[in-house]
């Protein structure tokens, strides 16, 4: 080797030695460092954001009129930026009184004007999550009347029909109901977009944190709002780093370079829970894993075939092995903990029964289907396991792993055979899933109700659609719950949906990190409750 090479090598080693002692091992007491996958964030405008990571960010930088208490999520909604509210006799008019003395991060005071502006722009911008508000009859041409700030402290919203009070208020707790600083938004407005272009990459809220920097697919940094109306957060800064590999997250957690790891695989969870200084928290989330069969493709529209598939899935086996700790068997379309939850699980793995049903249907061995699914490791494992059991029952399965965007196109066009995927609730009310799994007012191709899973799978259900529409208007909570249970029971028997699991989020934490509320089935993650 030349002298130069050895000199270079020596200096490199010296540099490494010098730097390793300089690296900080533990994170400061007032800083929270989280590793998770944030590559799904496309926009952080509350009128547009609809994916999980965006929801996480907005949960902590904005507040909503009605909120869920992170210390008691199952209690249901509580006052947020709206201190109290009244509902009219006919159930259509909601009068909300704003909380006093709250300021935005910019220093501007919060008033009902901002609330009206925030809700109106959701309807006017017509982005994906706008349906959450427009389902109440708010339209572009009537927002001026239906969403009004009658004075600085009062907001009046008028729905088109009488809906269950809990339904309306639950929808206001969703990300789309985040209250935006009107003055700041309009200062940055371009071409009448209500500040949309600017808010896609900036925040202007009242929340516990303000966004300090956001590098897409890299990280985002939040700084605490010292004047937060719920009290100053213990964590002055929150760093969220994008690390998509479970093994990398695990190593960082072990070394103490991060406090929280949110995407550990079951095997990595098992490994770190045995380690000193690390604990694992579990939280039942709202995401549901299902396999759906396109009713436009014969013989998948034969009820016996559909039932056969339901008996050819190894629910228990998968949750004990490949999904261990991260999914629990669940076979109804409402997530557990929701009003109207159904714990019945009528199906289990029974290959003989599946075979018999297929034979009865006259398709003992001639069915071949393609299952489209996303290509993340867990979904792929489930798909391959499904392929195994279905093959035993006599159905040939071809798997097509695609990235999220590819598989969706075919699905929305009703051209798939079968789709394996997950569905997460949009707001903490049972109508969110009922609307998509059990509601299909028009099954024709032209209707293009692409937001509804029942439509995508061409399931024609006039009766169930009526039942679902009735359930959302029922004011009596107990009765409403029964209605959803009845719908789900029928759904389990007759629908082309094979609901399989509900997600459990396992979070790896350094011991000493307390109070991280991941949101259960109803909400997103809360950073401002964390202490170390």
């Amino acid at each position, binding site marked *: 080797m030349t002298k130069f090479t050895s000199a270079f090598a020596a200096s490199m080693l010296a540099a490494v030695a010098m730097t390793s002692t300089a690296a900080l091992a533990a994170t400061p007491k007032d800083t929270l460092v989280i590793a998770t996958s944030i590559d799904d964030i496309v926009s952080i405008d509350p009128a547009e954001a609809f994916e999980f990571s965006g929801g996480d960010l907005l949960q902590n930088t904005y507040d909503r009129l009605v909120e869920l208490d992170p210390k008691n999520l199952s209690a249901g909604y509580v006052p947020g930026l709206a201190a109290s509210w009244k509902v009219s006799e006919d159930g259509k008019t909601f009068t909300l009184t704003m909380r006093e003395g709250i300021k935005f991060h910019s220093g501007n005071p919060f008033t009902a004007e901002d609330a009206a502006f925030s809700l109106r722009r959701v309807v006017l911008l017509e982005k994906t999550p706008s349906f959450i508000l427009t389902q109440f009859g708010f339209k572009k041409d009537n927002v001026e009347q239906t969403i009004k700030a009658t004075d600085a402290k009062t907001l009046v919203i008028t729905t088109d029909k009488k809906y269950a009070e809990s339904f309306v208020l639950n929808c206001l707790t969703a990300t789309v109901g985040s209250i935006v600083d009107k003055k700041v938004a309009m200062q940055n407005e371009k071409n009448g977009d209500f500040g949309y272009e600017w808010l896609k990459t900036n925040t202007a809220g009242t929340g516990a944190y303000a966004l300090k920097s956001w590098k897409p697919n890299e990280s985002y940094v939040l700084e605490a709002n010292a004047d937060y109306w719920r009290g100053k957060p213990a964590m002055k800064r929150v760093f969220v780093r994008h690390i998509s*590999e*479970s*093994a990398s997250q*695990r*190593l960082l957690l072990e070394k103490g370079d991060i406090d929280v790891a949110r995407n550990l*695989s079951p*095997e*990595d969870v098992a*490994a770190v829970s045995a380690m000193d200084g690390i604990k694992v928290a579990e939280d039942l989330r709202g995401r549901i894993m299902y396999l759906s069969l396109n009713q436009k493709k014969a013989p998948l529209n034969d009820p016996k075939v559909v039932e056969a598939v339901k008996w050819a899935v*190894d629910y228990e*086996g*998968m949750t*004990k*092995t*490949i999904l261990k700790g991260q999914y629990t068997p669940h076979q109804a379309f409402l997530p557990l903990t929701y009003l109207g939850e159904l714990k019945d699980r009528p199906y289990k793995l029974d290959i003989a029964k599946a075979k018999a049903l297929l034979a009865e249907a006259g398709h003992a061995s001639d069915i071949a289907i393609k299952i489209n699914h*996303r*290509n993340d*490791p867990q979904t*792929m*494992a489930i*798909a*391959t*396991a499904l*392929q*195994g059991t279905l093959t035993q029952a006599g159905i040939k399965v*071809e*798997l*097509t*792993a*695609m*990235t999220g965007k*590819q598989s969706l196109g075919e699905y929305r066009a009703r051209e798939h055979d079968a789709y394996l995927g997950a569905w997460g609730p949009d707001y903490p009310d049972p109508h969110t899933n009922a609307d998509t799994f059990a509601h299909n007012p028009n099954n024709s191709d032209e209707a293009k109700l692409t937001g509804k899973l029942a439509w995508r799978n061409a399931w024609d259900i006039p009766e169930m659609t009526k039942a679902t529409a009735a359930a959302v208007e029922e004011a009596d909570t107990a009765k409403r719950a029964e209605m959803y249970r009845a719908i789900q029971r029928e759904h389990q028997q007759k629908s082309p949906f094979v609901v399989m699991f509900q997600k459990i989020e396992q979070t790896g934490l350094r011991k000493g990190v307390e109070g991280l509320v991941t949101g259960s089935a109803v909400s997103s993650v809360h950073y401002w409750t964390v202490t170390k």
Partner: protein
Amino acid sequence: MTDHAVSPGRRGGLRAWLTTDTPASRFQARCVQSYLGWLRLAGNPLAMLGLGIVAALILAAIFAPLLAPADPLLQNLSGRLQPPGSPGHILGSDELGRDILSRLLYGARITLYIVALVVITAPIFGLIVGTVAGYAGGWVDVVLMRMTDVFLAFPRLILALAFVAALGPGIGNAILAIALTSWPPYARIARAETMTIRNSDFIAAIRLQGASPLRIVSGHVMPLCLSSVIVRVTLDMAGIILTAAGLGFLGLGAQPPLPEWGAMISVGRQFILDQWWVAAMPGLAIFTVSLGFNLLGDGLRDALDPRSGR
């Protein structure tokens, strides 16, 4: 001198016929060259090791059904992630309980398929483009090199991804995509070598004899570039298999449940810290195979290259 027109049937006669230095026909001359090349190869123990490995790969692929202890697709969820040495799983079991050894053996077929497709397409096309460009010079060179540059300038994975995305996922399309993006480096290397050779004396001599450019390029220039190309091909072998794994990582390569080695590593990466064998076994298989191809390639280069002087 011995009579070289003796029929090859007689023992000792065949050997003599193949080792003569005054061949009677062009066919015999070719046979002599090949045989001598083979002797040179056989004399190189590392090359023989390489040949052995490649032969083992081929045999494993052909006789997989006989050699494999279990069905490569048979799942056994309760027996998943068994370490090597467990009963029934010499090399361990994967995340769905399938036997890794069986999957490796069946995966050898897919590996061969990958290798064959790539070797047939990319280097040959690149060689042709490179030698023609290097020899002809002028605007032919410019046009061909610009074309090469466009493909070279493309981030290779992107082009492969785009091609596969357009055609649909699957191992065949993935390989075709990789092959189509691999030829430019061969073209550049061939061109570099051609430009070094083309002004040399023996080329001038052949040209004086009246050989056409086509003949010069195909008959004389290309064989000289062949050795560099072969070296590069063998080096690329592992890279191509791994690129296929990369495509699988992004969901566009071999579809489950195919036991393609690269896809097995991609899936196994989740378990890399504790259940290392799920990714390590196919990795070892790829390493062994690429070692074999490399050794064989080196040996071939030494044997075939008339300039190596051995």
